[in-house]
């Protein structure tokens, strides 16, 4: 079981770290935590095989309010990027964080955050969901504010903490209302209950849904609830930014998707809200990103825009669109993880995140520069790289539903976004480097290794998307097939 591996990691990392510190062994803690995350792939693969065989795997968590973990294709699909980006950033952190102190807690928090995210996407009831949600959130606050000797991370972390916990609180109240209506916290149970028209048209439900959307929306950074993100993501250490932007905000998306399915009868309204929010998010993300001077802040706004695309795809609500959204979740995790790491590498080397300072740095750090270019081109939707595939699928899903206006708006957004990605690429890669960058050296091997993992996946998915499209389509089909979901959890 994936979670147990990580939980084991959480518990042992401090011990290993303490011991190795005592013995004066360097990098043992770092390698150990990477190893733990790597090890989690083994149960993960077993899990996939199991899911592929039985459809939904249910793990009861003993003695906790009948809590269960249910893992279906959707969860499996979400776990994959979490593990990959988690692993990559763990490796990356080895060099990136090497000058920091308090690394024991850093790696512990890192694996706790990964644990939390995996828990969120495999929760089978609201209680478990909320539990892991908080694990994830709390560890991420701490990580954002990890470099607490400077003001910026602390402020950003604080802001993030407040907003996110407010979100949690709102969601909790929503959950409470749902519990009140449906009488159960179990997802399948709720879904079953929602099939009864009386319950489904309960006015309280509307309040509950609004609360849940806002709660999840804050985490997913849907505009106008995105205001924490542009502060928090740049302020966090880069591997954490990768995780935050790459996967953590996607747990909000996962929540939206899961609950969207649960409240079947409310699809139309839910779609309406989501699509309005989606376009608001896209436009604000893209237009604001255009003029950022801070490379990580630019990437942060770009994440907001990408969330907009995903939300839009969710709002369409067909198998094609859901699978497109899922694929884009995966692709964006790879791309954005990669981009933040590359930006981090530049920051690490030059001590600056200001693009005007970083001009031409790609020509001093060729490898990182090339990797950054891959990421930028991928996210700009260049064919042959992964971003193109999922963006194409999103647009085509929209066209299939005859949402021409929306499709056109999305395409316009793609074009706008290309502008700033390309400008960034140009400034980083093509300008003559400033003289004070003359002594900048290539990033250390472990950082490169972390980026190469993600970059190669970007290329692989772009060139050979077949496998991922199949899986995401399967996941999309499973996601919408609420009947079998209920059956396999509740039986008969």
């Amino acid at each position: 079981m994936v979670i147990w591996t990580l939980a084991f990691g959480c518990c042992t990392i401090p011990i290993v770290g303490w011991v190795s510190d005592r013995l004066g062994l360097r990098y043992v803690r770092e390698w150990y935590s990477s190893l733990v995350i790597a090890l989690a792939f083994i149960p993960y693969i077993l899990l996939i095989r199991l899911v592929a065989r039985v459809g939904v795997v249910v793990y009861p968590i003993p003695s906790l309010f009948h809590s269960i973990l249910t893992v279906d294709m959707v969860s499996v699909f979400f776990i994959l990027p979490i593990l990959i980006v988690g692993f990559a950033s763990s490796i990356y952190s080895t060099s990136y964080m090497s000058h920091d102190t308090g690394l024991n807690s850093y790696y512990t928090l890192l694996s706790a955050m990964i644990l939390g995210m995996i828990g969120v996407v495999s929760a089978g009831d609201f209680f478990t969901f909320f539990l892991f949600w908080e694990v994830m959130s709390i560890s991420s606050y701490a990580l954002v504010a990890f470099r607490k000797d400077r003001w910026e991370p602390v402020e950003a972390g604080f802001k993030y903490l407040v907003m996110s916990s407010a979100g949690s609180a709102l969601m909790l109240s929503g959950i409470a209302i749902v519990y009140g209506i449906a009488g159960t916290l179990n997802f399948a149970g709720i879904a079953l209950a929602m099939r009864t028209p009386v319950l489904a048209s309960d006015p309280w439900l509307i309040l509950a849904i609004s609360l849940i959307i806002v709660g999840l929306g804050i985490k997913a950074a849907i505009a106008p609830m995105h205001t924490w993100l542009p502060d928090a993501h740049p302020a966090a250490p880069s591997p954490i930014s990768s995780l935050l932007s790459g996967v953590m905000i996607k747990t909000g998306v996962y929540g939206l998707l899961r609950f969207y399915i649960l409240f079947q009868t409310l699809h139309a309204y839910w779609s309406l809200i989501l699509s309005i929010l989606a376009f608001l998010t896209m436009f604000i993300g893209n237009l604001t990103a255009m003029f950022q001077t801070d490379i990580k802040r630019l990437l942060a706004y770009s994440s907001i825009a990408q969330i907009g695309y995903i939300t839009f795809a969710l709002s369409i609500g067909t198998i094609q669109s859901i699978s497109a959204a899922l694929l884009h979740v995966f692709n964006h995790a790879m791309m954005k993880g990669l981009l933040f790491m590359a930006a981090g590498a530049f920051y690490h080397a030059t001590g600056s995140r200001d693009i005007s300072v970083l001009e031409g740095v790609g020509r001093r750090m060729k490898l990182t520069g090339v990797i950054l270019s891959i990421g930028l081109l991928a996210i700009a939707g260049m064919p042959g790289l992964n971003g193109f595939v999922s963006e194409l699928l999103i647009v085509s899903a929209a066209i299939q539903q005859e949402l021409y206006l929306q499709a056109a708006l999305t395409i316009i957004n793609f074009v706008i976004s290309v502008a700033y990605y390309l400008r960034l690429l140009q400034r980083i890669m093509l300008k003559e480097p400033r003289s004070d960058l003359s002594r900048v050296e290539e990033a250390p091997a472990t950082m490169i290794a972390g980026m190469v993992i993600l970059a190669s996946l970007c290329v692989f998915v772009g060139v050979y998307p077949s496998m991922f499209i199949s899986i995401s389509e399967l996941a999309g089909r499973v996601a919408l097939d609420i009947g079998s979901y209920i059956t396999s959890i509740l039986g008969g």
Partner: protein
Amino acid sequence: MSLPILIQAVLTPIVLAPIVYLAGRRLSHHVGWLAFAILIHSTAMILMVAGSEYLEVYSWVPRMGWDIGFKLDGLSLPFALNIAVLSTVIAVYSIPYMEHRIGDRPGEYGSYYALYLLYAAGMLGAVLATDLVEFYIFYELMLIPSYLLIARWGYGERERIAFMYFLWTHIGALALLASIVAVYWVTGATSIEVVKTILRNTRIPFQLEAGMATAMLVGFLVKMAVLGLHVWLPHAHAEAPTPISALLSPAMIGIGGYGVIRIALSFFPRFFTAYSLPIALWAFLTMLYGGLMALSQDDIKRLLAYSSISQMGYLLFGISSVNMLGVSGSILHYLSHGLGKGILFMIAGILIMQTELRSISRMGGLASKMPLTALSTLIGFLTLIGLPTTSGFISEWMIFGGVIRSSLASGSMDKLIVAILGLLATMLTAGYGLWTVRRVFFGSIPKHLEEVREGSVIALTPIIALAILTFVIGVYPAPILDRLTQTVMLSLNLG
């Protein structure tokens, strides 16, 4: 499944690009020969199967019905041949040119040639593709390296111009993409052949067809830079490093024309027949406009860039006839324009290398200093002018023959008049072409050019190779025409 030959032609440059990059550090400018060898291999692969129709299909994303296929038939042959030959000879030409441009920064040769290979492979892939998605991917793949090449080694405000180039063509590509997606949802297929059959056998509403066709047409015409969608071209072509200009203009923009013929025209013949006259008119205006603009330029590369716009007008003109003669003529014109403009851009490069000048008004009398260059320039322009015995004539008479035939067949006097006007516009080509030759090479030599010498042998050899090719095709076009006309007739169901 056939032998993996065409896939080699396309993928070898892509796969070997990183190696070229790495080798560049050690070999400095000699790495150009490595790129040359790789492209020779690709050309040889294409020539190996050029004898008959050849098709390779590899499964790619079976779930979505996407395949990767490579097809060499009479229609793609002239394109593939042109791209392969041009990129091969220009690889050689780049060696002295980039030495001049880059100078003693040996690290950059590797990146230049790696990007160059990717660019060539992208173009080759696009014309050999059998699947819409695959086509689109290659269509965009040629964009990125060319963008980087311009932005890195161009002239003037190269970064802004590269950016503009990218955005324009990318927006065009997105229109194309929208149309591809729509076609996919109408037919449920992405294979060009399958889609064509389905579209031919189902009656879809004309409105829908017109919408899809227009989006597609706009997508391709941005690449072709016809009037109104041409803004990016003069800048990009003028400021790109010259070898790249010599690929952009003769090889790349014509791929828009290939797209129109292979995809748009074969999918939506009804649309093209219905809108034949407006398209012809648009093409004519493009010819006229490009020609007039070329007439007023002083920068030699800019002049050539506008001339390309004008020549793309010819291509579109031939397509607007929607018959075998005109469409075949267009395809052949791609080839002859490629040869002619390839020569001319390389000449422009030689002039830049030898005189450090781009302004025509500051040149003059160079024929005595650089006789071979002068002769090649003349040949290049004569190809564009369409003088018999150059390939330009064969293509031009076919284009205009096609348009005249279609106008006579439809009894449309307007179109006949447009055809005659179009032929009159060729006068402009003669005008700016010969005038340029005269201003650059004839007359007396200004003082500051008295020390100028003939270009290097390595730079001139590719030019002469192309010049010979244009005569060979001009005198004996049968090997290409034979298969071209057959394919055009069969594949487009055109008379």
